[in-house]
Every structure is written in structure tokens, then in C-alpha cells.
């Protein structure tokens, strides 16, 4: 069946139609959560959420609000499908990943519904690429049940402060230990690798600290291999909020500003590796 180069006119039976002048607004966010081959896409009138999970311990979500798109129409209450994220990213970046000023790839995404492939129409400099990506049954997603009322500790930091730290994390350590406390050391990142243990402290009155709400001293450990992919989201972001709840579940929320100055969010949720909640350090 030949693929036509013309995207469908409105009135066609598509449950999801989205247009974006600059496909990078979508591809860069998706790369920030690309640590598994498969992702679940969830579209509502509010926008698009793409979720990636691993080992039943970590979940990453990329949110692209409807306002970011030049056109975003969802015909049903919600549209969900599972898709190969590596393939999706290869298609979105078909014209290359270098961002030359003034040149961008325009995107139109169409989805007919359950059982149909996702259609992408990409155009750059007069050349049109049409992609048809098969979709699958959406999986059950983890529900971390992380709501703001149960948050014990919360810090908002400027990302530039954390970027170097995360890029240089000692990967020979199995865990990343995060300590948050109303008393010293306030906010500490620790690793325990072959060369020894490393501690990185951030004082509460540091310039990088935008908000500091710590009520209880908490020390939690998370598998470092699961958290390492969040470095991609950190690299793109300008601010990050770090929150933990009573069980030690970690929520990392990254505020990302795209080329046009619009704001999008990526969040990572992670289960603690061991439950070490100390009342006092």
C-alpha cells in the first residue's frame, strides 16, 4: 500500500492529530526519558505524556502540553498506546540531530486508534518523510502514588549545580545515597565505589538552592544504574525539584525550557533500594 505524502485532512477518523513546527521540541524531551526501548504514550486534551519504566522500580514521564503543539486534537477522552521509543526517536530525527539555526523539521503525527500504526509526517527543506510505526497494547503502568500531601522533604535546585555531580557519579558504586535534612549536611549525595566513598554536600543557603523544605532527616539509597539515565533530563533542564515521601520514594521533577522558551516537564520516580530512614544522622 503506497504511503501518500499528503497528511490527512481534518475530518478523517484520527483519534489523535498533533502538529509541531519544530520536531526537536518533542524529540529532545523523549531522549531525556529514553532508557528502555518501549514507551507508553498517553494523550488527552491536555497534551501528551510518554512513560518509560524499568525493573518495576523506576518510571520516567515526559509531559508535552497541548499548548506546545501548533495543533493538538484528541477525539476520545484519552488515547493510549505502547510504541518502540528507539524507532520513534530515529524517525523524529530522520533529518539529523544537529540544530542549525533557522532550519527545523516540521512534524505531523496521526493515530487512527487501537490496532493502527502511528503515522509521522516530517518535512525539512522541501523533503518529506513518511513513517508508519506499529503500536502495541499498552502495559499496566506502575502507580507510585506519590502525591504532594505525603511529601516529607522537598528541595528545588538550579540544575547547573547538579549537572557536574551527576555526570561524574562514581558508577562503581551500586547505590546513590541521598540525604535530606533540616540540619547539616542539609542535602548530601553519596556514592560508595571501588575507590572509596564520595560525598557531595549542598548547603541550604547556597545560591543554587531555590527552595528548601526539609522536615525530617532522611537517608535513602537508590540503585545508581536506574538513576543514571536521569542525567539526560538534568542536562536539558534549568531547575530540578527533589522530593521524598515517608517510604523513601524519590521524585525528581525537571523543568525544561525549549528553544522557543516554552516550559515542559520530565519527572523520574524511583523506589528506594533499602529502607534506611534515620531519625537522626
Amino acid at each position, binding site marked *: 500500500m503506497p504511503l501518500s505524502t499528503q497528511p490527512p485532512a481534518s475530518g478523517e477518523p484520527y483519534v489523535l492529530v498533533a502538529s509541531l513546527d519544530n520536531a526537536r521540541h518533542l524529540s529532545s524531551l523523549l531522549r531525556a526519558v529514553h532508557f528502555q526501548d518501549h514507551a507508553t504514550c498517553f494523550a488527552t486534551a491536555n497534551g501528551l505524556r510518554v512513560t518509560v519504566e524499568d525493573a518495576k522500580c523506576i518510571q520516567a514521564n515526559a509531559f508535552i502540553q497541548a499548548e506546545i503543539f501548533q495543533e493538538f486534537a484528541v477525539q476520545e477522552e484519552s488515547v493510549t498506546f505502547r510504541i518502540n521509543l528507539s524507532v520513534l526517536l*530515529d524517525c523524529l530525527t530522520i*533529518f*539529523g540531530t544537529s540544530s542549525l539555526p533557522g532550519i527545523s523539521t516540521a512534524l505531523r503525527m496521526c493515530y487512527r486508534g487501537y490496532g493502527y500504526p502511528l503515522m509521522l509526517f516530517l518535512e525539512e527543506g522541501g*523533503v518529506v*518523510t*513518511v*513513517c*508508519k510505526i506499529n503500536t502495541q497494547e499498552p502495559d499496566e503502568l506502575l502507580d507510585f502514588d506519590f502525591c504532594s500531601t505525603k511529601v516529607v522533604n522537598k528541595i528545588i535546585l538550579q540544575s547547573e549545580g547538579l549537572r557536574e555531580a551527576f555526570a561524574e557519579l562514581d558508577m562503581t558504586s551500586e547505590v546513590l545515597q541521598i540525604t535530606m535534612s533540616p540540619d547539616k549536611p542539609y542535602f548530601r549525595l553519596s556514592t560508595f565505589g571501588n575507590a572509596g566513598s564520595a560525598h557531595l554536600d549542598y548547603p541550604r543557603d547556597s545560591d543554587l538552592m531555590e527552595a528548601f523544605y526539609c522536615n525530617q532527616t532522611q537517608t535513602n539509597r537508590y540503585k545508581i544504574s536506574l538513576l543514571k539515565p536521569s542525567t539526560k533530563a538534568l542536562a536539558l533542564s534549568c531547575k530540578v525539584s527533589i522530593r521524598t515521601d515517608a517510604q523513601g520514594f524519590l521524585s525528581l521533577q525537571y523543568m525544561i525550557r525549549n528553544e522557543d522558551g516554552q516550559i515542559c516537564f520530565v519527572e523520574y520516580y524511583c523506589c528506594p533500594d533499602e529502607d534506611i530512614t534515620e531519625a537522626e544522622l
Partner: protein
Amino acid sequence: VINTIAKLAKTCTLRLTVSKLYFILSDKVANGGVSMWCELCQGNFFDEFQMEGVAAEHNEIYLELMPENLSRALKTAQSAKAVKIKLTNKHCPCLRVAVELPSLSSSSRIVTHDIPVGIIPRRLWNDFREPSVPDFDVSIYLPVLKTMKSVVERMKNLSNSIVIEANLSGEMNLKIETDLVSVTTHFKDLGNPPWASEDGCQSSAQDRDLESMAEARIDIKKLQQLLAGQQVNPTKALCNIVSKRIVHFILLHEDVSLQYFIPALA
């Protein structure tokens, strides 16, 4: 030039005549059926060129060499004052590359690379004849190589083979199709090069429907290698497609012409 050849072939034949150098790869199974013919005028590259072939009527030399070796030797020559290449026969035939490097002292430093070569005897010279332009179905100019390169590189992640199709209305499509995904890139307004009419093949092309596509499915890695080797935009780039058989690429730069044949997959 050597860098491009090195990317395309592990071993190739260098044919030297009085006026030209040729890098040749003939279509053996070991190459995956790919063949290459690269031609350059010695005058454009060398200040001095002396050669003496096997005999007066066959004033040519055929050598077998690994272009990667020559490429590495020439890397030393990036900031050289002068480079001399000689064919010698000490213990075994070698291409001796002597690079004169600038130095602070009055005597200059000379770095010498000896690249082993095989001499190809005259009886085998027929294996390396210039390939004739095939009786193609469509001839079309290639799109901007940078765009083609990006697209083919991404497609390489998704599939092992790619279909090139083109018609006489200047349209070319690159297509891949797997269980997971199908992707088609459409290029328009590319233009079709005019070929001098020979024995009626042109008139039959005129009878043909301008819209109908000639297509061939080829190994995507080979196409990607060819495109990756093109660092500079060629003066002219075109391809001839023989439907389901072979794709013949012609890339012309100011001083070098490169022809590359990629056969269609079974």
C-alpha cells in the same frame, strides 16, 4: 581522495598510466558484489610524475594495495613541505612514501612509510577494465548529500536493506520496511541528467512513462559507506538505476571522478 577510497574498500587495485591514476575495485563476491572505479588526473595532484610500464605498448602499472595503509601514511603529510612517492622493490615491492617535514633546524626531517603492494601481472589486467555504463532504466541527480546522508544513517538503525526508486520526473524515494516500521523519504525536483542517445536506448526511455519508478533494493550499509566517504559536496552527483538489478553512482569532483556500483539484493 585516499580517505574516501579507504572507507569504501579494504583492498583495491591502483592502476597507473602516464596521465592518470585509477583506483579500482572489481565486483567479486568478497566485496558483496560492489565495484568501484575512481579516476584522477595525475597533473592535478603531482608536480612531478614519472613512470615506466611493463612495456612500451602497455605503459601501465597495476598494483594491489590496502588504501588504509596509504591513508595513514598520508596523514603524516598534513603539514609536510613535500611528499615523494616511489615504487621500489627492496625485499618485496613497496610504495615508498617519503614525507619531508618542516623542522626548526636547517636539516629537514624525513619520515618514510613503506607500504607493501602486490604487482598485478599483465595477464590479469583484463579483470580491471573500466565498467561500462549499464543500460539503466532511470538516471537522476542525487539530492543534497548532507540530507541523504542523515536520512540513510537513521534508516540504517532501522533496517538492513533500503529501496531506492526514482523516475524521469526528477522524483526519488528512499524506502525501508520492517515488521516494526516503514519509512519513506520523498525527494522532488531533482532533475534527470541528459544522456547522449546511443543505439535507441534513449528513444525507448522517451516512450516510457515519466512517472513510473525504477527501483532496486540494496544493502543499506554499502550506501551509507559511500555517502559517509563524501566529505565535500561533489560538483555533480547522480545515479543510474537498473530496475531490480544494480544502482550505479557517479560522483564528480573537480579533479576526481568516482563510480560506484551497488548490486540489488536477491
